[in-house]
């Protein structure tokens, strides 16, 4: 394949639509994911409205029937996890950052990279069409437990469910190809001098996330094939009347499901680690142990899945081993959290909007991690399983990476991506509103959950013991609406800065990693000359330099190099 010579002028189509440039592909993923975030956000609004004011006319939509409510709940989960979180955290940041941070011209397989976006685009089209198909979209929860999801008459959803499965299968194929690309690029195309332990942490975490996804999605692809055959060909994999096993799907789903939440979390951790280190002007505390902890957590994430099934027919004897592995996996993450906090010790912190979002993400994750211990303990899970306590828990852990983590990333790398600075005051307003309304939505949700309110019920007022929760639910809905509205500060800031933002220089934040050594936005081949790397990415406030930063590719002046040499030999 003759790779395009760098100066061959590409037409609009080749350079903007069907482009093999990893930066363009990253922006394509980002824009498609932001569209889906809008869709996911509107499903959240309708769900919250129906719960707070059951069977009333939701402004802008109207009455939400029970089956429509189930479809909204399913779509909210599917869109947010697979069509917002994964594209932004894995595909957009991974595609944009990995080649730039390792000093490569592009991904190892540029055309495969473009192909994986367009497979994701087709998956999005398939999911959108599944909404308008007779019988409506899938309505069996984002987990799609059979037999409810395996037979049309149980939910009245016909092709909507089949297309939902197809959309997921395509999305998995897209991210499988993406993962192969990320790993091959990082293994083979690092700049000279860039050894494995001089890689920025966000690259390490992107790679671990890619490996976890690659090795965990298999059984769910098999499960999706089996479920699709159950629905179309009439096989009975998950139908007990035909000798099938409904619990088999839950095992296959959660064998993928739990590693999946770490696939979402790790890129978020990587981003906030980068941002915190830059704005504290201080090296990441325990860089290498964090990487080992991430890899250990990656392996452990494969042996914890059944803590989702304590009360769903799992053999009671299995609950204890899985609660032990669930406890063990909280150790590496606690280590990473404490190390991030230790990075702040004796730092010199500037509270820019990326930094605020990273600190917010950390604070939110600590709360989410701690509520996880309630869910991990089998007896407590007997009571709180499938209640809003679980919903509140996973929104804390997911929001920390997906919402706060990716906003930190967007505010931090916007200058490099688009060549313009974002407005700081709008960023700070957006942060504080999002942080306050996020907590006012999800802290009360813990209480609603403890009172026993079950998940995915359209009308809590049909239950005597839930009636006293009406004011709380209304408060949550109001805060959720305000949380959604406060996102407009980001949308305005994003599009305004695209056009009228102050022109960004090469290194606005004075950071060390390689992507800040090239222009903003970087040219087609990223680097005029392939950089050579002399040190790790976090040499801030290093004794070797007067300023408080020392880029990876800057050779040390001779005397200092000599001093450094015998010091470290």
């Amino acid at each position, binding site marked *: 394949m003759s790779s395009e010579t760098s100066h061959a002028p590409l037409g609009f189509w080749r350079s903007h639509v069907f482009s093999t440039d990893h930066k363009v592909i990253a922006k394509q993923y980002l824009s498609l994911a932001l569209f889906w975030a809008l869709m996911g956000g509107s499903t959240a609004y309708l769900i919250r409205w129906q719960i707070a004011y059951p069977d009333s006319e939701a402004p802008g939509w109207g009455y939400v029937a029970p089956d429509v409510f189930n479809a909204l709940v399913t779509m909210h989960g599917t869109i947010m996890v697979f069509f917002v979180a994964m594209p932004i955290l894995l595909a957009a940041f991974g595609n944009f950052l990995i080649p730039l941070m390792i000093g490569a011209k592009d991904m190892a397989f540029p055309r495969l990279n473009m192909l994986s976006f367009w497979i994701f685009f087709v998956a999005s089209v398939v999911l959108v069409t599944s909404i308008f198909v007779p019988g409506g979209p899938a309505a069996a929860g984002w987990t799609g437990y059979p037999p409810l999801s395996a037979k049309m008459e149980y939910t009245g959803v016909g092709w909507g469910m089949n297309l939902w499965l197809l959309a997921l299968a395509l999305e998995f194929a897209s991210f499988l190809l993406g993962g192969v690309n990320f790993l091959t690029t990082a293994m083979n195309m690092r700049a000279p001098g860039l050894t494995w332990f001089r890689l920025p942490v966000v690259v390490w975490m992107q790679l671990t996330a890619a490996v976890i996804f690659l090795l965990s999605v298999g*059984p769910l692809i098999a499960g999706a094939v089996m479920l699709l055959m159950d629905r179309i060909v009439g096989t009975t994999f998950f139908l007990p009347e035909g000798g099938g*096993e409904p619990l*088999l799907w839950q*095992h296959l789903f959660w064998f993928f499901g739990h590693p999946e939440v770490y696939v979402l979390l790790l890129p978020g951790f990587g981003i906030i680690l980068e941002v915190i280190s830059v704005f504290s002007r201080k090296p990441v505390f325990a860089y290498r142990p964090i990487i080992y902890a991430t890899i250990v957590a990656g392996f452990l994430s*494969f*042996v914890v899945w*059944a803590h989702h099934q304590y009360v769903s027919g799992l*053999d009671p004897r299995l609950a204890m081993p899985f609660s032990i592995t669930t406890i063990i996996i909280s150790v590496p993450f606690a280590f990473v959290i404490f190390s991030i906090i230790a990075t702040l010790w004796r730092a010199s912190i500037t509270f820019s909007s990326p930094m605020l979002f990273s600190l917010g993400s950390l604070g939110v994750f600590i709360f989410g991690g701690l509520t996880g211990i309630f869910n991990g303990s089998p007896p407590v899970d007997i009571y709180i399983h499938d209640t809003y306590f679980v919903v509140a828990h996973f929104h804390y852990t997911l929001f920390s990476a997906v919402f706060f983590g990716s906003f930190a990333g967007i505010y931090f790398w916007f200058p490099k991506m688009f060549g313009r600075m974002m407005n700081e005051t709008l960023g700070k307003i957006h942060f504080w509103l999002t942080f306050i309304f996020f907590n006012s939505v999800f802290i009360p949700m813990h209480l609603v959950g403890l009172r026993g309110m079950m998940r995915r019920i359209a009308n809590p007022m049909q239950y005597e013991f839930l009636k006293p929760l009406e004011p709380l639910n209304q408060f949550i809905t109001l805060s959720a609406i305000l949380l959604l509205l406060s996102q407009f500060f980001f949308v305005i800031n994003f599009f305004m800065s695209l056009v009228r933002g102050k022109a960004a220089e090469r290194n606005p934040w004075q950071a060390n990693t390689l992507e800040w050594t090239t222009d903003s936005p970087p040219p087609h081949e990223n680097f005029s000359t392939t950089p050579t790397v002399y040190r790790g990415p976090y040499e801030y406030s290093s004794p070797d330099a007067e300023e408080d930063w020392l880029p990876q590719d800057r050779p040390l002046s001779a005397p200092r190099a000599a001093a450094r040499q015998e010091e470290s030999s």
Partner: protein
Amino acid sequence: MSDSHSRHYLMIWIWLLALVLVSVAAASILPKVQALVLIFAVAIVKALLVVRNYMHLKNERAIIYALVLVPLAFVIILLFALFPDFVYRG
């Protein structure tokens, strides 16, 4: 075509075919349990023959070994974790 290569591959091919016949014979002669054990042992040997010789895994770097063994380990963990729910029916 260098003879050493092709002769080696032909030898492996003959071994594979022979092993197929062994497992077929085992299925019809040996009692149930022994037959099963032998059949799947033969299957593993055949897989190793293909992986080591045809896929040249024996002269690859360790990373490639890991790429095969780690997913296999996870699949085996999944298999044994499913036993209590579906085989012993708790």
